[in-house]
C-alpha cells in the first residue's frame, strides 16, 4: 500500500502510523496477492511466528539449564551426606579352607544390598570386587581362566587382576574391596572406588 500523504502534508500527523514491520509475510516471501485465498484469509506473519517460536524454545532451554543446576546441587548435597557417613567396619566373609584356588564366592559388603565377589586366583592370591557393573549395575561374572570379569547385560569386561574396565560400556573400574587375612579367615575392611 502506498502512502497517501507526503511528509510535508499537515494531514500526515493525523494519518495512522505505519510500522515497516506491520506487514504480513508469507513463508515463501511472495506478496500476499500471489498467495492462495486461504492464506490471504488466515494470514500469518512468518517472521513474527518464528520470533515467538524461538522465544518459547529459549525459555525451555533456560528451564533445562535450571534443571541441570538442580541436579548438580543434588549431587553436592549427597556428597555432604556421604562424607558424614561412618566408614564400613571389618566383616568376616569366608575361610580360606572353603575357597579353593581358581574359585569365587559371593558376599555382601558393606550393606546387605551391596553384592561382592571374593576370588581366589590359581596362584592363591585373593581379590574382591563389587559385583555391580559400573554401567547399569548388572551382576558381573568372574571368568578366572580368561582373567576377566564379564557383565552379560551389555558385554562389559573388567580386568580380573585390577578391576579396571577394559571393554564395553562400563565407565569406571569396579570398586575394590580391601581384604585382610587373619589366620584362616578372610575379612573385608573397606571399599575403594576410583574413576580410572
Amino acid at each position, binding site marked *: 500500500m502506498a502512502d497517501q500523504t507526503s511528509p510535508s502534508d499537515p494531514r500526515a500527523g493525523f494519518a495512522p502510523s505505519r510500522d*515497516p514491520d506491520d506487514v504480513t509475510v508469507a513463508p515463501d516471501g511472495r506478496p500476499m496477492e500471489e498467495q492462495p485465498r486461504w492464506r490471504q484469509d488466515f494470514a500469518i506473519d512468518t517472521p513474527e511466528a518464528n520470533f515467538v517460536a524461538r522465544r518459547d524454545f529459549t525459555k525451555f532451554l533456560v528451564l533445562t539449564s535450571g534443571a541441570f543446576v538442580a541436579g548438580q546441587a543434588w549431587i553436592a548435597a549427597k556428597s555432604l551426606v556421604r562424607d558424614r557417613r561412618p566408614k564400613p567396619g571389618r566383616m568376616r566373609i569366608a575361610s580360606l579352607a572353603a575357597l579353593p584356588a581358581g574359585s569365587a564366592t559371593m558376599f555382601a559388603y558393606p550393606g546387605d544390598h551391596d553384592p561382592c565377589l571374593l576370588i581366589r586366583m590359581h596362584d592363591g592370591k585373593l581379590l574382591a570386587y563389587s559385583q555391580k557393573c559400573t554401567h547399569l549395575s548388572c551382576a558381573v561374572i568372574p571368568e578366572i581362566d580368561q582373567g576377566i570379569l564379564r557383565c552379560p547385560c551389555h558385554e562389559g569386561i573388567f580386568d580380573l587382576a585390577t578391576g579396571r574396565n577394559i571393554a564395553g560400556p562400563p565407565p569406571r573400574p569396579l570398586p575394590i574391596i580391601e581384604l585382610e587375612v587373619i589366620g584362616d579367615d578372610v575379612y573385608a575392611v573397606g571399599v575403594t572406588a576410583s574413576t*580410572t
Partner: protein
Amino acid sequence: MSKKTRRQLTRAQRLTVIYGVVCFVLVLVVLQLWLLTATVNAWLGDDDGVVWPALAASAGCLALNIGLLRSFLHR
C-alpha cells in the same frame, strides 16, 4: 541500547540477533549436560573434589542463560 535505536531494528533483524542468542544458550546447556555427566561419573568413583566447582560452573551458566533470556524478552 536505547529504545529509539531498538525500534530501528526490523523483525527480520531482531530474528537474526535472536538466532545468535538461542545458539549461545544451546551451547551453554550442552556444556551443562556434559558437566553433569562428568560430575556424576566422578562422584560415583569417590572423587568429591569436582562436585562444588562443577556446581559453581553450572550455576554460572544458568545465570548467563537467564541474562540472555532477559535480553531476548526485552528485545
